[in-house]
C-alpha cells in the first residue's frame, strides 16, 4: 500500500504525499466525535462520539504507518479495534444498569452526587 505514496516532504515533517488526506479525514472524524460528546446528553450517543474519536486515531495510525512509520501503526490500529469493543461493552453494561435504576440514560439526570 505504501507503494502508492510518493515521497514528498510536507512542511518539514516526515509526511509523504497522501498522508495529509488521511489526516484531514481523521481530523474531521475526531472533530465530529468531540462535537457529538459536547452536544449530546444521551450516554449512548456520547459513547458513539468516543468511538468516532478512537477510529479517527486508528486511521491516523494506519496512514502514518504506511507513510514510513513501520508496522507499529497498523498493530496499534488492531488494538484500537479491540479496545473500542471492550470499552463499549463495559460502557453499555454500566449504562444498562443505570437505565434499570434511574429509568433514563440522560447523563444530566442522575444527580445524587453533588458538591
Amino acid at each position, binding site marked *: 500500500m505504501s507503494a502508492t505514496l510518493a515521497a514528498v516532504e*510536507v*512542511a518539514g*515533517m516526515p509526511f509523504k504525499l497522501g498522508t*495529509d488526506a488521511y489526516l484531514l479525514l481523521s481530523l474531521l472524524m475526531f472533530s465530529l466525535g*468531540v462535537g457529538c*460528546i*459536547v452536544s449530546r446528553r444521551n450516554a449512548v450517543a456520547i459513547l458513539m462520539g468516543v468511538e468516532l474519536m478512537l477510529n479517527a486515531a486508528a486511521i491516523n495510525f494506519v496512514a502514518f504507518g504506511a507513510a514510513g512509520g513501520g508496522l507499529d501503526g497498523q498493530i496499534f490500529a488492531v488494538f484500537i*479495534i479491540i479496545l473500542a*469493543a471492550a470499552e463499549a461493552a463495559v460502557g453499555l453494561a454500566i449504562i444498562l444498569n443505570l437505565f*434499570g435504576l434511574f429509568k433514563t440514560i440522560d447523563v444530566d439526570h442522575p444527580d445524587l452526587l453533588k458538591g
Partner: protein
Amino acid sequence: MAAATFQELLSNTMFQYFLVFVFTAFGVVFVILNVDVLGKLLFRPVMPDPLKLTTYECGEPTIGSSWVQFDIRFYTVALIFIVFDVEVVFLFPWAAVFAKLGAPAFTKVMIFVGVLAVGFINAWKKGDLDWVTSIAAHDLAAQKDARLARARQRALETEERRAA
C-alpha cells in the same frame, strides 16, 4: 495561486497551522468551557414542545413510549458476543500466514485462545449464556442472597444486643 490544487493546499504550511488551529479550538472548547452550557446554547438547543416529544411512528397514532424495555438477556448475550467476536481480529493475520509460521505461532495463538476460553467458560458456567434458565437462576440467587443478608443482619443485631 488562484489555480492551487487541493494537493498544494494540503502541503501549504499555513494550512498545516490551520489544522492545528482547529484542533486547539476544539481542545479549548472541550476542556475550559462548561460542556453543559456550551452544548445547550450552541450545538443542541433544548426547545421541546409537546409534538416534538411524541414518539415518531409513521402514520400511526403512537402507543406508549419509544423506550420499550427488552428482555435483559438480549443485552447480556449481545455484550458477550461483542467481546468475543472482536477478538477474532487477532486471529485473522495469524490464520493468513499460519502455513508459513508453523508450530511456534500455533502455540502462541493457542495460549491466546486459551485465555479467551477461560473467560468463555466463566460466562457459560455463570449462566449468562443460558436463554431459558438464566432469569430463574438469577431469581434463585437473589433469594439466596437476601436470605444470607438477613441472617447476617440478625447475627449482627444479636452481637450488638450482647455488647449492650
